[in-house]
């Protein structure tokens, strides 16, 4: 007979360890344990059965995997923590004696330095692993780069974060690996693809961050410590992989002047001379002869079209050059199926090199109210070389002259004044009368959203939609993939609607509007100045609704033509009669509303100009009957479907049925959400139509 197994010696009881046990085993304090966990990336687990995992009867909250903790036991950082503890005791002792100088010396000279290098290697055995985990790191570091220095966040950390972030951005600019960006209410999302890994991070808008009391900066500081180390290594690897020297030279004077990206100067590995990403002259360009400038620009254009890293700015990075022989075309060929019944595999639609040179031929000027840093980064990352801005925005611009004729696009984000409107039309802006409000002829003025939408779309969009003062089209997230049943705001509503949904909604609306109309009509009746004739007509209509249509025709005509706007229509009845039938519902609605505005009763307005009324609405009773039939049929079908579903579920096991139930539930929720959005859109569209009609 097998030996009776002792309880708690194998399985879940052995695999999991509570947090208290772990801390005791490691013999460190809880804050140290937390730091260690953050550094080593150790996280609690959820045992399948909590009761089996814990040896006590109290419901323990946190479980760690035992092997994780065992692995921590051999961590070199543990010794550092102990050293630190010993030092802290010494410092406390000397502070207790009042020897502040001693304490400072101890802290300065003897504090153990934590080195996280080995942890980086352990956690990310390959470079791709590190890239995969970069999302959180970048979001965090970009946040810290924007934070003000406080006692909890030392300025050195902030400076380091800024530097690392800019270095990373420079890499993205040089390699054109930025793919998408999105302006959200939280901040700006960026997505880059490096070595096949999609990295998505969020950068806050430049505002002072609100810090609440429940945010513990020590924990965040620990994360930042780890992330800075990680990003340092990643930057090194990225820079060296494209033949750049790491760390790049940091130009402190430019940084002081607000140079941001241009404060970092990239250097090629083989070449001795420094390569600046920035064209050197800033103020010189102002005085340059326009003709020379033009020629330079044209040269610029030719070079940029040839290679992504253009030579005129002195960038000579020993990168693999694009092959000159056309036999080795690196682009992906498009496969077309020869037979119709074959599967069609998805292919990349656009070669990335085209996307990288999206703005290559353009020259931008950023007005001073625009966010400079994100725009500069995006434009550079998508191939733009000449970005000028107002001197207020800081150092590093291609030019500070707003009236440089070579500028093709100006990003502007300020309310339109009447004077500028006039200028746009006037076109000619005299050299003498240059003010920052005036418009340059031949220049495209756009709002910042244009840049983002162009990038997400992968092509240059119509700038007139984004003109200053124009109502911008909605800014859509580029990461939402259209799925079946989900609501897609870019697609027309009719395509997405479930069968019968629109009719139902319409019916409901009609019921609602009917109520409204009746109320309105009652109001109209109450009005004393209403002409008697029309009032009687209304009464008649109310009494025998739909029955006296033919008889009323003549009256209606006269009344409908009474408003001046309708005067012209009454003459050519026949022509309009044929039109009326093919009238779309929108125009019909519009006409109704117009008529309402003019003070004509509903049913009269239904037969607006033509002698024959539009059938769809006038044959109200018959239509409602048909609708009712349709609805009944729909309801019956739905009921049948439900019954069928029940019948099928009856034949499943209990567990499987639960799974299906949850899936159905979540699907139903999704559908409901999409339905809500569709309903809102329907209402909005109706409102818009109404608004147009009212005008």
């Amino acid at each position: 007979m097998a030996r009776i197994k002792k309880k708690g010696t194998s399985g879940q009881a052995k695999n999991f360890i509570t947090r208290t046990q772990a801390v005791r085993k490691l013999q460190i304090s809880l804050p140290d344990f937390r730091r260690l966990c953050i550094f080593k990336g150790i996280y609690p687990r959820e045992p399948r059965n909590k009761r089996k995992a814990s040896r006590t009867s109290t419901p323990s909250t946190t479980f760690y995997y035992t092997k994780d903790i065992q692995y921590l036991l051999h961590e070199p950082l543990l010794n550092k923590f102990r050293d630190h503890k010993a030092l802290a005791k010494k410092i406390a002792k000397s502070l207790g004696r009042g020897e502040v100088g001693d304490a400072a010396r101890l802290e300065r000279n003897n504090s153990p330095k934590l080195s996280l290098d080995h942890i980086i290697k352990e956690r990310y055995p390959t470079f791709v692993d590190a890239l995969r985990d970069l999302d959180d790191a970048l979001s965090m570091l970009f946040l810290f780069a924007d934070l003000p220095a406080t006692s909890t966040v030392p300025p050195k950390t902030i400076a380091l974060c800024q530097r690392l972030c800019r270095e990373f951005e420079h890499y993205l600019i040089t390699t054109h690996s930025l793919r998408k960006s999105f302006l959200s209410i939280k901040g700006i999302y960026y997505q880059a693809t490096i070595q096949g890994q999609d990295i998505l991070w969020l950068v806050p808008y430049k505002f002072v961050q609100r810090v609440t009391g429940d945010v513990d900066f020590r924990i965040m500081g620990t994360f930042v410590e780890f992330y800075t180390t990680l990003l340092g290594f990643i930057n090194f690897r990225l820079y060296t992989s494209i033949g750049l020297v790491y760390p790049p030279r940091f130009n402190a004077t430019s940084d002081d002047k607000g140079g941001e990206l241009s404060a970092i100067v990239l250097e090629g590995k083989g070449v001795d001379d420094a390569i600046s990403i920035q064209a050197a002259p800033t103020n010189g360009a102002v005085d340059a002869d326009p003709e020379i400038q033009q020629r330079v620009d044209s040269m610029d254009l030719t070079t940029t079209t040839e290679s992504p890293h253009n030579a005129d700015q002195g960038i000579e990075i020993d990168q693999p050059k694009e092959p000159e022989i056309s036999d080795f075309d690196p682009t992906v060929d498009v496969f077309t199926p020869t037979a119709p019944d074959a599967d069609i595999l998805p292919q990349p639609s656009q070669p990335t090199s085209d996307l990288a040179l999206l703005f290559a031929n353009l020259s931008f000027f950023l007005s001073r109210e625009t966010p400079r840093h994100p725009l500069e980064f995006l434009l550079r990352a998508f191939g733009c070389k000449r970005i000028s801005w107002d001197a207020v925005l800081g150092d590093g611009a291609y030019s500070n002259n707003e009236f440089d004729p070579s500028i093709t696009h100006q990003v502007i984000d300020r309310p339109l004044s009447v004077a500028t409107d006039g200028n746009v039309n006037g076109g000619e802006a005299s050299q003498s009368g240059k003010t920052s409000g005036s418009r340059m002829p031949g220049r495209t003025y756009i709002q910042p959203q244009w840049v983002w939408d162009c990038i997400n779309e992968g092509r240059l969009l119509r700038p007139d939609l984004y003109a200053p003062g124009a109502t911008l089209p909605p800014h859509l997230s580029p990461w939402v993939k259209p799925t079946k049943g989900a609501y897609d705001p870019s697609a027309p509503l009719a395509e997405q609607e479930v069968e019968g949904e629109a009719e139902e909604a319409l019916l409901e609306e009609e019921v609602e509007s009917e109520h409204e109309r009746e109320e309105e009509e009652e109001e109209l009746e109450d009005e004393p100045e209403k002409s008697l004739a029309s009032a009687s007509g209304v009464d008649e209509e109310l009494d025998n609704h739909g029955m006296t249509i033919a008889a009323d025709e003549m009256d209606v005509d006269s009344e409908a033509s009474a408003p001046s706007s309708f005067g012209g229509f009454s003459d050519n009845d026949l022509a309009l009669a044929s039109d009326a039938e093919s009238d779309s519902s929108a125009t019909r609605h519009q006409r109704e509303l117009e008529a309402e505005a003019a003070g004509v009763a509903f049913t009269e307005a239904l037969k607006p100009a033509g002698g024959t009324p539009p059938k769809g609405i006038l044959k109200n009773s018959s239509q409602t009957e048909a609708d009712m039939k349709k609805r009944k049929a729909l309801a019956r079908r739905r009921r049948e479907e439900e019954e069928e579903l029940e019948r099928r579920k009856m034949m499943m096991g209990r567990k499987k049925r639960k799974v299906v139930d949850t899936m159905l539930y979540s699907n139903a929720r999704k559908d409901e959400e999409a339905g809500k959005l569709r309903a809102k859109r329907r209402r909005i569209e109706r409102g818009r139509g109404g608004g147009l009609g009212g005008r």
Partner: protein
Amino acid sequence: MAPQRGDSKKRKAITRDSPEADEVLLSDGGDEEFLLDGTVSQSEDDSDEEENDVYSIDGGSEDDIRSDEVPSEDEAASNEDVKINGLGTVHIPQKETEDGDLEASNYTVTADANGNPRYVYNSIHPVYDSDDSDAPATTNTIGNIPLSLYDSYPHIGYDINGKKVSRPAKGEALDALLDSIDVPKGWTGLTDPSTGKPLELSQEELEVLKRIQMNEVPEEGYDPYPPTVEYFTGKTEVMPLSAAPEPKSRFVPSKHEAKRVMKIVRAIREGRILPYKPPAEKEEEDKEVKRYDIWANEAPRPDHPMNIPAPKLPPPGYGESYHPPPEYLPDRAEKKAWDEADEEDRDKDFLPADHDSLRKVPGYDRFVKEKFERCLDLYLAPRVRRSKLNIDPESLLPRLPSPDELKPFPTGCGIIYKGHEGRVRSVAVDPSGTLIASGGDDGTVRVWGLRDGDQRWSVKLGTDEAVNVVRWRPGTDTRVLAAAIGEELYLIVPQLVTAEREGPGADITDRSRDIVDAGWGYAASNSANGPSKKQPAAQWIRPASTRLQDAGVLVKITLRKTIKVISWHRRGEYFATVSPQGQSHAVAVHTLSKHLTQLPFRRLKGLAQSAQFHPSKPIFFVATQRTIRSYDLSKQELLKTIQPGARWISSFDVHPGGDNLIVGSYDKRLLWHDLDLSMRPYKTLRYHKKAIRAVRFHQGGLPLFADASDDGSLQIFHGKVVGDLMENASIVPLKVLRGHQVRKELGVMDVDWHPREPWCVSAGADGTCRLWK
């Protein structure tokens, strides 16, 4: 002594100046002796000079030592004073020139008894700084011997210098003196042993003695607790105590120190000692940015199932845009709901907002909080691998044939057969499909026309007991009905209405009668052969009453216990009855042609519930409460024990194919057994709310089965058995037939299928039978 010779000589010179000093010292003992002393010493003055000199050398040497320690002028001065005092008698004039004022206060001159001037000195206070030594000045050195030894001499001993101490005056002179003067103050009448003089004590001395007697401090006015006098105060004196000039050493640099300094200087010059340099802080900055490729030799690590990477945050949706489509903006109700909801309950952590241009976008005030929460999630949130099924739930649902394909099946109530009083316990459709037999609590067996619902025939078998079961004999050529009431079993050939007597119906009746009657006499002949030892299992007799015989009841079989179940063999030759209370008689198999009853089981485990013949093989199924056993009749052995898992089996039926069973149980379960598959149920169906009373397969080729339950409903299932062994039976619920009313917790009592049509007939506790089609 030799090295100090010089010094002592110096001192000697001083001593020599006053050779009389010794005398003074000697006479220090008492004031009264001065006079006598003086007289004695004067006489011997010259002779003593030499000795004095020698002595003073020694004494001078002692003095020298003292003078080294305290080279004070004061002492010298005081010494001189004393000397002067001592020399008073000799050199008074000299004395007076020197220290006139001192002399005046020191003593008084009185006349003594002899009229000589007497110097009375003030008593010396024994204060600390007096030069009175502690040791008593022993003037007489004779030691402790009686003075009487010196009676014959004019002296009474020798002083320290060896000079004779003369005897004090005695006798007449003294007597006379004494007579002349009265007793002086302080007279004691005692004689001082050391001096031999009468001991007199002064008033002060007496008071001292008195105080000693009183145990007080002898000194007068001594304050044991005087206020402290600070000898050294913190105040710097205007005049220093010592006017000694600063020693030279204090102005000359120390050579030793110079040596030590030179040693250090030399070490610094030679570079053995380095000056202190604060550690540079530059290297810190260098460490912050790593300068090497950590992934130089990267090796991918195989993925471990326990390693769960942190899930990435989902990308933002349309609603998060700074300028979303208008349909994403919340209306007032949604906004209010969001505001009112607890922060944890919100499905989104932000409220979509529309800004018509980028410059109007405010900072997001929860940014830091969100990032912090993400940090917390990363290191505090337990991670679990959850497989999410991203599939259409349709694909999980079993593929059922559509109800149209499953047709025909009964869908509603066709005909209601009314007539029974009380419950109808059993119902059976005859093999031809034209008649229905039913038996109920009123003790009657009735036969109904299936299609018209008319009662064709009825007979009352008993009054006090209910007809528990009615079953038609299989086979269309005969029309034999078996009905059980109590422990009696009747074989009936119903005499139907006359219309059917002629024609084909008449033949059937005759044939049926023949078959039933064929066994008469067989038992008798058997019993003639060998008289049975035991009582036979059952008695086959003709019913006694002619009424029954006329109605067509031909055979009455009496068993021991109440019969609950009758089941016919497919050929109609055998039929089995089950009477659950019967113990060893529970299951009986009857042979119709021989009118023979056998009891195949000596003992059964548990109460027998039901029994069935296999439709094609010689196998017999017997259900007890928990299990169903199948027996091979030819080999007479147990084949299988089927365990449906039900608590109490109510009924079961064998599929016409023979490999499948359905079992109904009182604990609401309907179980489908595939005998090839397992002894356990293949499917357990629980769709009834009450116990299941009866289950029945359709025997005419349609894949249907039905069950009847106490909840008043019948359920019709599609149960298709495929010949292919690889494919399991497909069971589809088809229809719930409701119509019977529940009476006293009982609903539908029995169910039977039409032999060909998809119709079924049920017997209800409400006294009706119903045809469902």
